[in-house]
């Protein structure tokens, strides 16, 4: 066994972020300690992050205790992320009501306990509540039906 998988992965994630930010920092003016350029502080932090990542990685190798990562709700992940992207993509074109309905309907299925009827009821209910709160209550300037639906 390689040691604690969680720590190994966490270490790699931090090293990756550290190297990526560090590489990007090199593209900016570093300057000197007296007159720091835009790259100075990020480069310094990236160095620290990379070192911390290495420490976590090494600790992971010597860690004998197993810590299982546990299940990942893949379907929920895809549905929720998809729902957010679809909202962002359609809210101006389709308008708030249709866009929100798609978003809620999709995210409802992220739960294993929700069936089609439940999802429909939730979609109608939540859309109604949101429109009442955000559009009528708070007066946000959002179109209920967007230009994509104009015929």
């Amino acid at each position, binding site marked *: 066994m390689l040691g604690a998988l969680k720590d190994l992965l966490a270490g790699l994630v931090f090293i990756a972020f550290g190297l990526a930010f560090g590489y990007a920092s090199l593209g900016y003016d570093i300057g000197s300690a007296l007159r720091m350029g835009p790259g100075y502080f990020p480069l310094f932090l990236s160095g620290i992050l990379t070192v911390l990542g290495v420490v976590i990685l090494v600790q992971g190798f010597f860690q004998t205790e197993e810590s299982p990562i546990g299940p990942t*709700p893949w379907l929920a992940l895809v549905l929720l992320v998809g729902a957010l992207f679809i*909202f962002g993509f359609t809210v101006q074109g389709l308008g708030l009501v249709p866009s929100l309905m798609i978003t809620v309907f999709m995210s409802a299925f*992220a*739960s294993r306990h929700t069936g089609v009827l439940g999802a429909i009821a939730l979609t109608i209910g939540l859309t109604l509540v949101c429109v009442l709160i955000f559009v009528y209550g708070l007066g946000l300037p959002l179109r209920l039906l967007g230009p994509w639906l104009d015929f």
Partner: protein
Amino acid sequence: MELFANLGLGFETALSPDNILYCFIGVLLGTLVGVLPGIGPTATIGLLLPITFNFEPVSALIMLAGIYYGAQYGGSTTAILINLPGESSSAVTAIDGYKMARQGRAGPALATAALGSFFAGTVTTLILALFAPPLARVALQFGSPEYFSLLVLGLLASIALAHGSVVKALAMIVLGLLLGLVGQDIYTGTPRFTFGQFELYSGISFVSLAVGVFGVAEILRNLEHETIRTVAVKHVSGLWLSKDDFKRIIAPVLRGTAVGSVLGILPGGGHVLAAFASYSLEKKVSKEPEKFGTGAIEGVAGPESANNAGAQTSFIPLLTLGIPAHPVMALIIGAFIIQGITPGPNVVTDEPELFWGIIVSMWLGNLFLVLLNLPLIGLWVRMLTIPYRVLFPAIIAFASIGTFSIHLNAFDVYAIAVLGIIGYVLVKLDCEPAPLLLGFVLGPLLEEHLRRAMIISRGDPMVFIERPISAGLLLAAAIAVVIAILPSVRRKREEVFQEED
């Protein structure tokens, strides 16, 4: 007396009909999100930030503060009735509170929690009124080197209090700092880490980060093991305390308030630690420590007072120094900035109405909370029966609309999704998200003060050690890290957090 004049001004502000209403809405929402497991005040305040754009600054801040301390009350209701902490700080309350509920003593447990919290809230409101202004005067003398050291202290102290690996917490802070630097450099205007995306020139949206990491990641976490909650106690009766109960809780409430007031000022979720510390303390001083864990009323009274005291004193560093003690305070700083007010020592003198209004509103809010929580307990019990599968699509819907409406920009909504995935991966690898958000907020400030200090000192880093206040702060920061790493302290820390399970 200056204090009375100031409090008078505070009452005048807080008691305007509008502000009473906002305070009430705040604590009502706070109780609601506190009661419902799976939604915390961090995500809620993040979601409501955009809505407060159009409010008066005082009203906005009164409401947001109300959500925060209101959640402390609500969280304990859930802990007592269904053995699930609605809020991380009420995790300890569940130990003895739930046992009491099982024994048919849910009423006294809830009453203890509410009364203890109210007492703590009243005392800490006074502490805030007494100590914040002199502290702010001291802070006015701070230059950039002192601010830099203070920020370092704040960041490092937050890891001493977080649970889990110290190195991972440090890495999360640094990652947060780096994410905070995304956007245009303040001195030269150079866009950094923007991938040419125009939307990133003004930085990663604070709301997207908070909602992604504390909202979406948390939902995914909860969906890993979907369980259907059962409410054991459907009917709560006998909300009053017997004379004996009352006598037993006085000392724990006083001690809890003291512990909470001190720990709340410290950065990094002081109110959570305060609750744990108070529980350990009560167990230690008790003549019958074996009773703890079987439904001891002291085990509810102490931690509940402590977490509410801590929730309130954590406003001290915010109002006097402009430095957040934990993620919720970081969001409230965001609210100040949105309103065009720079949080810090100047707030007391420049915006006395705002400053004293918030303080007095806290006392008023605590009063509302006792009224909301005791007579209306039946309503909250019914709230607990709302299943999670209804709640999380609502969170997603609110998150999308709320975030989109800030700049009417879809980019911020995409950012929630991306940051949510990053947050979920990190949480899954046992990296706590709170230090990340703290680092994110403080990153730009830290860089600004570092650069300014280096210009003042002509590039000599010794400036941080040569100035006495700065040196003292850095020393305290070093001590915080050493303490966190010491093996004996680590064991103790794990022990304290173990009680959570």
